[in-house]
C-alpha cells in the first residue's frame, strides 16, 4: 500500500513538473476570453513562410537521420559484434560529440572553414554535417545494446550448422531491424527539435521559429501554434516505438552470464580499424583541436573566466542538482515500469518518452505560460524553472537506465526480503538500491551530462542573470572574439567530460570481479 501510494506521489509530482505546463499551454492557445478560438492555428498555418520552414526541417532531419543511422548501425555492429581492435576506445570516442552542446562543433568547423574562405559550410550542408556527428552515437549505442539482447544460444545453435556469415544474415541482423527503425526515428526527432546548430549556421528551421517568435514578441500564441507540429511529430514517434517494441521483451544479455559471441574479422581487421580511426579523428578529434588551437593562450582563458565564470559555476550547480533529482525520479519511474506496480505504468513510461522527444523549446514555452504569474514567482523567477524544464525533458533517460538495471536483478532478491517481513521502504533502501547503485551512478552521469549540455530548454526559461554556460557562450557568440569563444568551448567540454570520466573510472575500478548472481 505504501509502495503504491509513494509511487503515485512520485508520478503526480512528475506530471505537475512535466505535463501540467503542456496541458495549460494547449488550453491557453485554443481559448480566447474563455471561448474556443483556433485563430492562432489557422493564422499560422496560412503563412507560406511556415511551410518553407517545415520543409527545411524535414529535409534536414531526414538527411541527418538517414546518414547517421546508416553509419551508426554499421559502427555499432563493428564495435558490438566483432573483434575489431580498440572497439571500446572507439565507442567512447564517437560518443563524445553527443555529450557536449551540439553547436560547439558547429563553431569549431566554421572557424576552420571560414579561415579557408569556405562560406558554403553555412546552411544546410553544415547543419547536416554537424548534426550527423552529434547524433551518430545514438544508432551506434542502440545497435550495440540490441546486439546484446540477442540470445547467444540462438547463434550457437545456428553455428552448429552454418557459417558466421549465414548466422549473421539469417539470425542476428534480422533481430536488429527494430534497432534500425528506432534509431532512424529517434535521430529524426532529435534533429527536428535541435535549433542551436541551425541557428548558428543560419539555416531557418521550424523550431527556430517558435523560439524567435516567443523570444521576440513574448507572445505564446503563435509560438504554441508553431510548436504544435513538433508535439505531433513527438507523438508519432511514440506511437511508432510502441508498435515496434512492445511485441518483444528485451532482456539484455549484456548483463547475464551469456557472453556475446564475436565475429572474427580476419585480415580486414587492421585496415578497418585504421579507417575508423581516421574517421573518428576527423569528426571528433579535429574539431576539438581546432578549438584548442584557436583558444590561444592563458589570457583568453582568464578572460573567459572573467566573462563567464559565474555561468560556469551555475551550470555545474544546476547540472548536479538536476542530475540528483533526475536520478530520484528516474529510479522510481523505472521501478514502476519494471514491476508494473501501478496500472498507469505504461502511461508513465510513454509520458517520459514523449517529453524527451518533444523539442525543448516547447517544454520551455509550456513552463513559462504556466508559471509566469505573480503568485508563482518562486518557480518562474528562480532556477527552479530551469530544473523543472530539464527534469521534464531528460528524465526518460535516467528512467530507462534504471529500468534496464532493475531487469538484471532477479525478482527473488526483493521477494526474499518481503518473505523475511520487510516492508517496501526497507526493501528499497537495503536491498534494491545497494544492488543497483552502479546503475544509479550511471543514471546520474547521464542526467548530469544532458542537463549540462542543454540549450533548448534552458535558453528559454532561465531567469534574468541566471544563465548557464552553454547559454552564455551562445549569446556571446554574437559579439565575442573567436579566441574567447573557443576558450569557452574548451572549458565547456572539460567540465562535461572530466567529471563523467572520473565517475566512470570509479565505477570501473570498483567493478565486481564476479557477477553477483552467478553461483
Amino acid at each position, binding site marked *: 500500500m505504501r509502495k503504491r501510494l509513494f509511487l503515485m506521489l512520485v508520478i503526480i509530482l512528475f506530471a505537475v513538473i512535466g505535463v501540467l505546463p503542456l496541458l495549460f499551454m494547449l488550453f491557453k492557445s485554443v481559448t480566447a476570453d474563455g471561448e474556443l478560438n483556433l485563430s492562432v492555428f489557422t493564422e499560422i498555418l496560412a503563412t507560406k513562410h511556415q511551410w518553407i520552414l517545415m520543409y527545411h526541417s524535414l529535409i534536414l532531419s531526414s538527411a541527418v537521420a538517414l546518414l547517421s543511422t546508416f553509419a551508426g548501425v554499421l559502427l555499432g555492429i563493428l564495435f558490438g559484434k566483432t573483434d575489431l581492435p580498440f572497439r571500446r576506445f572507439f565507442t567512447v570516442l564517437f560518443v563524445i560529440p553527443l555529450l557536449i552542446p551540439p553547436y560547439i562543433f558547429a563553431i569549431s568547423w566554421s572557424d576552420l572553414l571560414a579561415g579557408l574562405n569556405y562560406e558554403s559550410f553555412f546552411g544546410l550542408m553544415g547543419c547536416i554535417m554537424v548534426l550527423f556527428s552529434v547524433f551518430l552515437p545514438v544508432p551506434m549505442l542502440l545497435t550495440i545494446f540490441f546486439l546484446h539482447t540477442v540470445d547467444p544460444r540462438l547463434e550457437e545453435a545456428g553455428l552448429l550448422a552454418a557459417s558466421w556469415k549465414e548466422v549473421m544474415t539469417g539470425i542476428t541482423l534480422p533481430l536488429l531491424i527494430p534497432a534500425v527503425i528506432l534509431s532512424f526515428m529517434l535521430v529524426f526527432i532529435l534533429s527536428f527539435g535541435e535549433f542551436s546548430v541551425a541557428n548558428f549556421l543560419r539555416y531557418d528551421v521550424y523550431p527556430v521559429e517558435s523560439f524567435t517568435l516567443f523570444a521576440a514578441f513574448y507572445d505564446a500564441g503563435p509560438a504554441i501554434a508553431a510548436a504544435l507540429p513538433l508535439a505531433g511529430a513527438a507523438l508519432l514517434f511514440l506511437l511508432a516505438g510502441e508498435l515496434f517494441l512492445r511485441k518483444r521483451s528485451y532482456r539484455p544479455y549484456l548483463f547475464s552470464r551469456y557472453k556475446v559471441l564475436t565475429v572474427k574479422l580476419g585480415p580486414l581487421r587492421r585496415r578497418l580499424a585504421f579507417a575508423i580511426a581516421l574517421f573518428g579523428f576527423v569528426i571528433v578529434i579535429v574539431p576539438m583541436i581546432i578549438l584548442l588551437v584557436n583558444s590561444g593562450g592563458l589570457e583568453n582563458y582568464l578572460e573567459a573566466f572573467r566573462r563567464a565564470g559565474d555561468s560556469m559555476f551555475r551550470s555545474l550547480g544546476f547540472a548536479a542538482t538536476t542530475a540528483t533529482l533526475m536520478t530520484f525520479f528516474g529510479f522510481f519511474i523505472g521501478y514502476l515500469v519494471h514491476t508494473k506496480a501501478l496500472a498507469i505504468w505504461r502511461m508513465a513510461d510513454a509520458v517520459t518518452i514523449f517529453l524527451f522527444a518533444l523539442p525543448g523549446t516547447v517544454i520551455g514555452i509550456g513552463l513559462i505560460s504556466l508559471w509566469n504569474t505573480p503568485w508563482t514567482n518562486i518557480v518562474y523567477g528562480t532556477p527552479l524553472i530551469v530544473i523543472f524544464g530539464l527534469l521534464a525533458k531528460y528524465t526518460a533517460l535516467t528512467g530507462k537506465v534504471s529500468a534496464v538495471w532493475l531487469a538484471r536483478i532477479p525478482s527473488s*532478491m526483493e521477494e*526474499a526480503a518481503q*518473505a523475511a*517481513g*520487510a516492508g517496501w521502504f526497507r526493501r528499497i533502501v537495503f536491498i534494491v538500491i*545497494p544492488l543497483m547503485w552502479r546503475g544509479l551512478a550511471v543514471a546520474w552521469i547521464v542526467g548530469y551530462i544532458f542537463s549540462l549540455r542543454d540549450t533548448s530548454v534552458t535558453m528559454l526559461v532561465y531567469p534574468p542573470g541566471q544563465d548557464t554556460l552553454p547559454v552564455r557562450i551562445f549569446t556571446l557568440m554574437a559579439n565575442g572574439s573567436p579566441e574567447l569563444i573557443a576558450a569557452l568551448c574548451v572549458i565547456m567540454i572539460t567540465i562535461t567530460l572530466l567529471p563523467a570520466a572520473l565517475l566512470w573510472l570509479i565505477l570501473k575500478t570498483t567493478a565486481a570481479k564476479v557477477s553477483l*548472481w552467478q553461483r
Partner: protein
Amino acid sequence: MATITLKNITKSYGQNKVLDNVSLTVEAKERIVIFGPSGCGKTTLLRIIAGFVAPDSGTLFIEDEPVADSGVIIKTPQERNIGMVFQDLALWPHMSVKENIAFGLKAKGVSGAEREERIREMLELVDMSGYEKRKPSQLSGGEQQRVALARALVLEPKILLMDEPLSSLDAKLNIRLRKEILSLQQKLGFTLVYVTHNEDEASDIATRLIRMDFGNSI
C-alpha cells in the same frame, strides 16, 4: 486445524491456464512434497501460498484465516510469516552471512542482544558457525544452501516453502542436505511444502506426496 488450505485455486498467465481449480489441505507439521515435470505450475503454486501472486479465483487460507481471495491479496507476504527458500536461493550478495540472517530480525524489530543470540543459535543449527563474515559468493553450493535455510528459519515460521532447493547440487550433497532438512523439520516442527522434480528426493522427504501435471487439478 489446517495450516494451509487452498480452495478451488485457479491461475492463468494469458491463455496459459497454469493452475486449474486446485484444492489442497495441509495439516500442521506435515511434509508435503509437490512433484511434477518442469513448467507444470509448482513454482506458481508456492508463489501463491507465499503471497507474491494472487490467484485469479479461489481462496487461500492460512491457519483458517483467508489471506488471498479471487485476485485480491488480503495479507501481503511480509505479513504472513512464511519462510521461503528460493530456487536460486536469493541470498543478498552485498550482505555477509550474518547480515543476510539478521535482515528479517531487524525488519521485525528484534532487539540487538536477542538478535545476536538467535543468529548464533541458528548458525549452530545449520552447522555454519564461523562463517558470519563471509559473503555468499565465498561459500560453496551446500553452504549457501544452509545459509538460505538459516535465513528463512531464524524468523521461526510455522510454514516453510522450498522450491527445488537442492536441484543445483551434486547427488552426494543432495542426499546429505535432505537429511539435514528432515532433522531440522523434526527439531523445529514447521510445516514443510517442498517442490521438486526429483522422484528420489520426493519420496525421501514426503509424509505426503502430491503429483502435479500440466493444467492440473489436484
